[in-house]
């Protein structure tokens, strides 16, 4: 018969994050190599301190356009030839910019690494930026922005940034640029941004997989040794909030069957000393399926398919966000429950059982997060971008285990600020506006999908 006796775990086997070495080429390029010989495959990521945070707000999107345009050919190789050569190696080259860095990355069979890395070197050192292709990529980005107007999830994420951050912060506008700013970008601006920011001293090559440190460094020297230039200052942005009082922002999507709900405020930098307690606190609040917010909104109330919270980690203070998509007629109820959960984790200590669930989960999944060479390369990228301590990976689990109930309550009180929360609803304003106003969460303003205020009777928006 079925056994009702729950199995007890065996003895855990030790795990250690792959060992890695850091080197620096004569031109200043850093190289981080983690040899992992499990399968004959390698992931590499070149990181350049050329993310959107370093853009002038007027030129929002230049970092993204520059990174994407790297793949459109070099001084000696047209873009289509470059693509064919890379893909004939069984590799796909991806280039993009996020808030903090620009990245050029690929995964390739280790037998083809030398050739692949040589192509990456050429792309990064000598991009041609053909006008026609830069204009095409710009048009593709504008098409992406247009698509978002009909895509409630992405639109809600983007609108949260806008309503949380002060206009002086780059974080107030979309990561890859807005329609207004992208429209102004030119091939010459791309060339200028590249010349200013793409320097070996502002770059790190991360290599993880089936390769030795010596081979990786020598291949990197062949590929990047001729790259020259002085190092520019590191990029920063302000992370000032838009306002210090609660407000509700309804972005109208007529007849939408669900409201995409985002509730958030300015969070903290990835470099904040309370990273570990914050991570545990969030796991209890809304980071997992078994967290309070999901069990409340999904399993107790059936308002939604899922509800989660998280800190969007960046070098600057990215937002803290609670996200869910809820049935239109329970929009107010769902927001009320989220606010109640935020109040509760500040007001009362979490239980021992909640602490152990969060800590055991975070400690236990640690090895599962690094099963692939791409995962390892991404983890090492975070190590580089956020300047994490050298023992970060080896001490991760003990630092998670050291977090106490008091720590969780302390960081919940310090870093969750109910009065500062901005409530963003992308949904049917005709149905949700009245109930939201009646709830008194804060002043309610309605917008269209492009973010223009919809009617004249809005309250004053304090900035």
């Amino acid at each position, binding site marked *: 018969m*079925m056994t009702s006796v729950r*199995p007890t*775990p*065996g*003895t*855990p*086997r030790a795990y250690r994050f792959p060992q890695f070495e850091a080197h620096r080429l004569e031109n200043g390029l850093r190289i981080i190599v983690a040899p992992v010989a*499990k*399968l*004959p*495959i390698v992931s590499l990521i070149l990181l350049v301190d050329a993310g959107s945070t370093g853009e002038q707000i007027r030129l929002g999107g230049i970092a993204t356009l520059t990174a994407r345009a790297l793949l459109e050919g070099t001084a000696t190789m047209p*873009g289509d030839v470059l*693509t*064919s050569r*890379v*893909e*004939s*190696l*069984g*590799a*796909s080259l991806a280039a993009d910019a996020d808030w903090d860095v620009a990245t050029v990355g690929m*995964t*390739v*069979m280790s*037998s*083809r690494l030398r050739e692949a890395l040589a192509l990456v070197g050429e792309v990064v050192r000598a991009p041609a930026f053909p006008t026609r292709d830069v204009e*095409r990529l710009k*048009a*593709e980005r504008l098409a992406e922005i*247009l*698509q978002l107007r*009909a*895509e*409630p*999830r992405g639109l809600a994420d983007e609108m949260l940034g806008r309503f949380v951050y002060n206009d002086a912060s780059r974080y107030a506008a979309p990561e890859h640029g807005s329609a207004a700013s992208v429209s102004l970008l030119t091939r010459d601006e791309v060339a200028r941004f590249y010349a200013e920011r793409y320097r070996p001293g502002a770059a790190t090559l991360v290599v993880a997989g089936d390769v030795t440190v010596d081979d990786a460094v020598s291949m990197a020297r062949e590929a990047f040794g001729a790259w020259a230039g002085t190092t520019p200052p590191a990029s920063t942005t302000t992370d000032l909030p838009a306002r210090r009082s609660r407000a509700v922002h309804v972005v109208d999507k007529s007849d939408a*069957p*669900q409201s995409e709900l985002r509730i958030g405020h300015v969070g903290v930098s990835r470099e904040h000393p309370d990273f570990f307690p914050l991570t545990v606190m969030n796991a209890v609040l809304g980071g*997992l*399926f*078994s967290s309070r917010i999901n069990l409340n909104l999904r*399993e107790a109330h*059936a*308002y*939604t*398919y899922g509800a989660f919270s998280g800190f969007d980690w960046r070098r600057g203070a990215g937002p803290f966000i609670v996200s869910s*998509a*809820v*049935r239109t007629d329970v929009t107010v109820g769902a927001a009320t429950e989220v606010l109640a959960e935020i109040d509760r984790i500040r007001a009362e200590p979490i239980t021992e059982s909640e602490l152990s669930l969060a800590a*055991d*989960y975070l*400690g*236990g*999944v*640690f*090895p*599962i997060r*690094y*099963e*692939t060479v*791409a995962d390892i390369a991404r983890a090492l990228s975070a190590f580089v971008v956020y300047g994490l301590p050298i023992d970060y990976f080896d001490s991760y689990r003990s630092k998670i285990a050291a977090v106490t109930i008091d720590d969780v309550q302390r960081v919940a009180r310090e870093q969750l600020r109910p009065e500062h929360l901005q409530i963003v609803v992308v949904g049917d304003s005709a149905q949700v506006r009245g109930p939201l106003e009646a709830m008194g969460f804060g002043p309610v303003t309605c917008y269209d999908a492009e973010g223009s205020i919809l009617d004249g009777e809005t309250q004053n928006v304090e900035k």
Partner: protein
Amino acid sequence: MAVRARHPMKIPIEQHRLANGLRVTLSEDHTAPIVAVNLWYHVGSANERAGRTGFAHLFEHMLFQGSAHVEANEHFELVQRAGGTLNGSTWLDRTNYFETLPSNQLELGLWLEADRMGALLPAMTQQKLDTQRDVVKNERRWSVDNQPYGTWWERLPALAYPSDHPFHHSLIGSMEDLTEASLDDVAQFFATYYTPDNAVLSIAGDFAAPEALVLAEKHFGTIAPGGNKPPLPSMELPPTFGAALREVVEDDVMLSRLFLACRIPPFGTEEHYVASVCAAILGMGKGSRLHRALVRERQISSEVNAFTYDLAKGADMLVVDATARPEVTSDALEASVNAELDIVHETGVTAEETARAIALIETGFVSAMQSAGERADRLSMFATYFGDASRINEEVDRYRAVTAARVTAFARARLGHVNRASLLYVPREAAESEIKAAGTGAEAL
């Protein structure tokens, strides 16, 4: 030309069958202290009876609501507390449940899966069913109804498979059918399909095969077999649609988008490997035909992909997915995709683009095989569909055996106009203004 890489990998595989019919597939890999437990039940939306669309998926949700010795939602909590990840998913022809755990927690995963395979019904209540029904309705709103183009994955099979074919109807189901689902349906579906002889258990990662087999026997060995699974109606279909099929959908979208399906042989056949390579030639990566022609050169499209659906019975679909640039009409998008397919249909493909496609597929395969969960899932897949998990070790060779001549012959036979089903999304506003622009002709709409 690229240098041919050495053969990337063969993984160790053991295959067993318990007395009650449960197939057990084991693959050891001790590089990290991680183990994946994966169960495939050979049941999906294709097995639903009339008036119960969406039930297979709703049932999957019920499997997380507890069993004889596990409370509601405790399955999630126990796995997460153990430091593991988990989920389940429903597809047209199978449902899977899986967890990846620290390797010392293997028995927990087996016990949880066995408890719900052997003793689900004592935990089922009307209230749990009502809650999960609402959760699934929310899932439908989220992934289908409130998502641009979200209906494509129910409309395209509906267009490409005849109305009496098991792959025709919606996997997520209609709101009406979800409302009708009862606890009796749960009991009946469980007794019919959730039996050891209709399942495959795969374990991959850091464990010892002999011990795992003993544990599998201990936890699953006493579960009674089923044997009452009704046969599916015939899935066989003619090799092509026989005529161009077309559906136009006006939707809340900003850009036109075309999903074009060609009927192809089922997943797992030699011919299907050729079809997969053809799809990669057409739409995998920036060097693919469609990307070069439509995105880079002609700037008709902002994004294009091609892939196979991978259905293992009757007939599968090769799908081209192309999104128009804002200034491009839906007609121009459709004509351009068709023109590119015509070229491949009429003149075939080159050895160079075949090699590029195979190289990309091979890297993707090896990349996926790094994760214990992926390995276990594919072992279950091959065991479920073909009765032989060791086919996983032949995948790379089967792809490498595909030649340009075979892809050309495939394109000749399968990419013609009589084998294209076009699902075209058109922005509602554009559709309205085009109707207006068509003049005051009284017959509009």
